[in-house]
């Protein structure tokens, strides 16, 4: 069952893998933005997570340690952003850009001498006979554990934001920091923790790129995935399950264009490789315009710093 040299089952199975990094990063950024902070440094945190995870995994031989180190790397870098925006109240847009530029430089500095090394393999979850079911088997039961973990994380974030006290506090801080402050919540401290969570998620996503998706270390290997993750948050209109849909959509496009390139399609390679970015723009336009404006759902205090006068 092939269409133009592309097997739809393999396509769906591989888009689930391709979607993991952007899904994780977008989910983290969603929580950050829900708390009213716009962190444009996702790309930088992702790439630092990618190299920290790669170094740790190569050094210890364990992909689990690699993923933990990736998350730690992203979180540490995000604390720089948190300090600058929450403690000394710097402009969030500019600081986020600085974080991305700094992260790209730092990662390539850390990655010196790691080119061309294979990381330890992240194993598939053994589902036994389930993996042999035609069509459903390769799509649902033939992935590594991070694929399932990322979906579980979507569910977890959705539940926390919707149904727990913690979620209510985060949303209150993001919608009206003055009201949250008046209720006695430490606005900047809560935001700081959300930023660290977002950094850890971006780092985890980055580690997935270098440990599973590619898997090796190349300078600047995230290639805009962090920016696409930011766009997905807008696409998802700040709802966790829509992040999953958005990530699968973009995962699908990047897998499709890669297999079209490999299948020797009539469309030139250059146009195929620019397609994920063009689709992002089109999606942003659709989501931002008209009456169903995504921005209506944006957290009210997004991007505004909070300084308690008293």
């Amino acid at each position, binding site marked *: 069952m092939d269409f133009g040299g592309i097997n739809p089952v393999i396509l769906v199975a591989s888009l689930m893998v391709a979607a993991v990094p952007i899904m994780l990063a977008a989910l983290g950024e969603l929580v950050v933005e829900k708390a009213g902070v716009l962190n444009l440094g996702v790309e930088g945190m992702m790439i630092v997570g990618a190299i920290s995870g790669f170094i740790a995994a190569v050094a210890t031989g364990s992909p689990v340690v690699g993923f933990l180190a990736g998350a730690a790397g992203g979180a540490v870098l995000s604390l720089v952003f948190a300090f600058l925006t929450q403690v000394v109240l710097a*402009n969030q847009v500019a600081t986020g850009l*600085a974080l991305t*530029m700094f992260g790209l*430089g730092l990662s390539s*500095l850390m990655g010196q001498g790691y080119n061309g090394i294979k990381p330890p393999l992240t194993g598939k979850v053994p589902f036994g006979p389930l993996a042999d079911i035609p069509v459903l088997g390769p799509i649902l039961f033939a992935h590594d554990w991070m694929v399932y973990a990322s979906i579980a994380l979507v569910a977890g974030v959705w539940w926390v934001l919707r149904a727990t006290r913690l979620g209510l506090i985060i949303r209150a801080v993001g919608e009206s920091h003055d009201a949250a402050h008046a209720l006695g919540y430490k606005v900047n401290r809560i935001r700081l923790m959300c930023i660290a969570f977002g950094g850890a998620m971006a780092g985890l996503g980055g580690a997935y790129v270098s440990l599973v998706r590619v898997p090796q270390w190349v300078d600047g290997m995230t290639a805009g995935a962090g920016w696409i993750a930011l766009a997905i948050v807008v696409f998802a209109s700040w709802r966790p399950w829509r992040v999953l849909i958005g990530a699968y959509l973009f995962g699908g496009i990047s897998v499709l264009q890669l297999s079209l390139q490999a299948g020797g399609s009539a469309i030139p390679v250059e146009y195929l490789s620019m397609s994920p970015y*063009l689709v992002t723009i089109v999606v*942003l336009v659709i989501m931002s315009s008209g009456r169903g404006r995504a921005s209506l759902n944006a957290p009210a205090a997004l991007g505004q710093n909070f300084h308690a006068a008293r």
Partner: protein
Amino acid sequence: MLRLEKRPNPSKFWQYGTPVVAVALTMIVGGILFAFMGKNPVEVIRTIFWDPIFGEFAFYLRGQLLVKAGPLILIAIGLSLGFRAGIWNIGAEGQYIMGAICGAAVGLAVYPTESRLIFPAMVIAGALGGWAWAMIPAILKTRFNTNEILVSLMLVYVAQTILAKASTGFLKNPEGMGFPGSRNFSSFPAAANPELIAGTGIHWGVIAAFLVAIVGWVILSRHIIGFQIKLSGQAPRAARFHGVNPSRLVVLCMGVSGGLAGLAGLFEVTGPAGQISIDFNVGYGFTAIIVAFLGRLNPIGIVFAGILMALTYVGGEMAATNLGLPAAAIQVFQGMLLFFLLGVDVLTNFRIRTAILGVK
């Protein structure tokens, strides 16, 4: 405990003081970083900041300084207008590439004709190319309320693939023995942008950068447009009551920054770079963001900031060849500079007070 207290007015002293403090802090922390990498920090800092101006090879490197500062200043001045108004064009790198491609295409189309009109036509085409590329996020923002940050950034990646296509496809040198890259402009005098005064590094792009700095300063401090830009950034509501049309301002600021980035790209590709190649762009569009902030979004400040940032490029290359410092270390250094700048800026708007426990 330390406590921040908002100043009624930004401190004049710190407005000019923060860049200096930030540079000093970056040198100190950067030095520590270099020390960790096993280099002698004093030697590295001296190689980057001292040698290009006063060292042994300064006669050559001083020229390189202006070569690198020219595009940075051109782009940063354009960006600063938008940044002041709260319009974030961060895709200058893409506009730079598109300007270079459009301008070069005009020149290469008439190769090998010799006419005085070719270079001016290329300059116009370059500016238009950058302008058109910046118009995409601008129109999408004004029409569909799309976030200009994300769109302009996505277009950088698109521009890079177009550049790859240009250098291996439609602008490839037909006599290039199959190597990627266009014809070299140094062998096409009518379209070249040579060094005008030998040894200084001054080419048309550097002259344009200084002219634009002066014009930018006049517009910002004397013209109604400059007033509207500043007003929109500081008090958007007041700007609307004043009659500022936000859409017009977005189109204007994005257009100017795109056009200037395109110009910078054209001057680079016809001069120092020499030809369209896959990697002729070296990230000036992104570094210019740092330059704009380091210059406090002020055209005159940006000129100094651009020269300082050029110093880190030139000195960084020196440190790479002489001391084996990786190129990425300079990128980290530049990123760190922006961090410190944004961090130290707290002193401009806030007073730091020590509060005794229990007393407010």
